[in-house]
């Protein structure tokens, strides 16, 4: 199966958007890591935690 030009371009835009969103997540985590909010180890490390923040 092959894709036509406009569909390919749309895909390029979609993956670029995904990359920007992922980049925003990383920046948010970086900022949170540099300014630890809580007093617990889990709050202090914003890079090594999932979405289950207390």
């Amino acid at each position, binding site marked *: 199966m092959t894709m036509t030009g406009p569909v390919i371009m749309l*895909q390029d835009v979609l993956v670029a958007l995904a990359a920007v969103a992922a980049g925003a997540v990383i920046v948010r985590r970086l900022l949170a*890591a540099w300014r630890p909010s809580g007093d617990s180890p*889990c709050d202090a490390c914003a*890079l090594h935690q999932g*979405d289950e923040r*207390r």
Partner: protein
Amino acid sequence: MVPVASDPTVTGVPSTPARIALVGNPNTGKTTIFNRLCGVHAKTANFPGTTVTMRVGRSQRADGGPLQVIDLPGLYHLEGAEADEVRALLLGDAANRPPDLVVASVDAANLARNLAFVGELLAFGIPTLVCLNMSDVAERRGVRVDPVALASCLGAPVVPMVASRGIGLAALRAAIEDALEAPTRPEPPADRPVAGASPAALATWADGVAAAAQGGLPAAPTDRRTDRWDRLLTHPVSGTLVFLAVMGGLFWTLFALATVPMDLIETTFAGLGALVRQVMPAGALRDLLIDGVIGGIAGTVVFLPQIMLLFFLISLLEDTGYLARAAFVNDRLFSRFGLPGQAFVPLLTAHACAVPGIMSARLIPNRRDRLATILVLPFMSCSARLPVYVLLTSLLFAGRPALAGLVFAGAYLLGAGAAFFTAALFSRTVLRGRARPMILELPGYRWPSVTNALFTARDQGVAFLKTAGTTIFAICVVMWWLSAYPRVAPPAGVTALRAEAAAPGVTAEEAGALTARADALEARDAQARSFAGRIGRFLQPVFAPLGYDWQLTDALLTSFLAREVFVSTMSVLAGAGASGDTDEGVLARIRTMTRDDGTPVFTRATSASALVFFVLAMQCLATLAVTRRETGRLRYALIQLGYMSALAWVAALVVYQGLRLAGVQ
């Protein structure tokens, strides 16, 4: 009988679900009791506004109602700075209501020492149920405790137990239920200690109670077998040799046993990639899914078996009582290098993660000792380094688990060695002075609990996977995009090769070979001209003397966010750089990665150099932030970053150039 509820300072405001807290001296089997009560329904957490890390679990009451069980850290006293937060939790404060009942786990074989802590609980008026654990060990040592006499002396219910075998669990549940259902307790005995009693007064009271509960026999007769083992395991020479043998054996087992599940995971993800390739049409989205998402996640998940196995084995070792002996052996070293004895706990914690390690350094009262510990602590091999070690040692010694295990253990020793070297250096320069000695209690030897070890392995595995869920996932997506864009026209050489393949008179076999060469050349060219290629190439001169190409440089940069990201970045770069539809496992793909000139990225010298770099480098923003906060100065975080980075660079340079000079490529 006095109704407990009549004393609001004891119970606080009653509310649902009922909450009980497990407390006691270290090594009294609290966690085993916790696991028996809660099974798999547990998670690690912190109380709001505290640094006390504990496990919180769910259990069920007799009427089916919920029962919250809290496993608090082991303590010897309720007084003192380190116990402040636990005491506040047990008594309740503005942020937390107190538990409805405290279950104090007591080692029946060391009754007098354990009872001093129970005395403190009673002195504070905390509603307490005593769990007389390890009754079997006590009996083997000839210690017979009468629970009825003990309960009468304490004025609190006592339940004998062997938690490791589940003996007495039903009685414990019933006693908890009774205490919660009818919150009454016997009239406290007249000689019960008062709040704020001195340690000496508590010890005298505990000796008296223990003697009465044991029918006047001496507190704890010495165990000759334990003494014999201790002489061997804590001896300066034999203790050190056993320590090295145990650690070597641990890492060998890790490599030898984890191969099967790792292969299974690799095959599964490779199959998943192949499936997506079949069902999705070619395009950017398919590439993102296969190379970015599946490739990146596979590069992380593949190390899950080793991480879980490591924590399983460490938990078994801890349960036997050996780790305390290892601490004793290592303490001799500590003092020589200017580290305090109390640093053992933060340094051991740092093997999981440097952040809680640094925070637990608050236990060290002296500021100089605390600073020395915090500054050297990130040298300890944290669990985030594990996947990187596994990858690099696997690349160095594929199919030779004994050698890989040895180098793996060497990486841990190198980290610890660098920490001691740095501590010695700092104690003669920026942090002059001598450290204070440590007093450590050696628990009795006992059979380890496989259930406990399984729970620990599961907890660590889940914690590791959570990182794959967010930061690593995001980085995989960004790295894939950076290595796939901008789209560029194929170079002239590729066009020529394709034309040659399509020319008349070329056999199908020759055409296939030419097309494969063209694909490889095109993929390599596209990646080299991608954003990732440009960034890596821009910074590569810094790392070129260490033998790293732009791809390794990229992976080093991303691993500053979290070290384990190194592996997924390499995996994504390997996928994007692969020619054609290769569906090999992630390790095989990384092993066969090539530089722009077609030579392998990972030679022996490069792998060894990268391993040394990762052992020594300060690549964790979270650790730096916590160092800044805990020391109160940005200066110390910068010293840590500058010193560790410089040391890592120089050591990696020496290793790479040394191996090259020795003819190892």
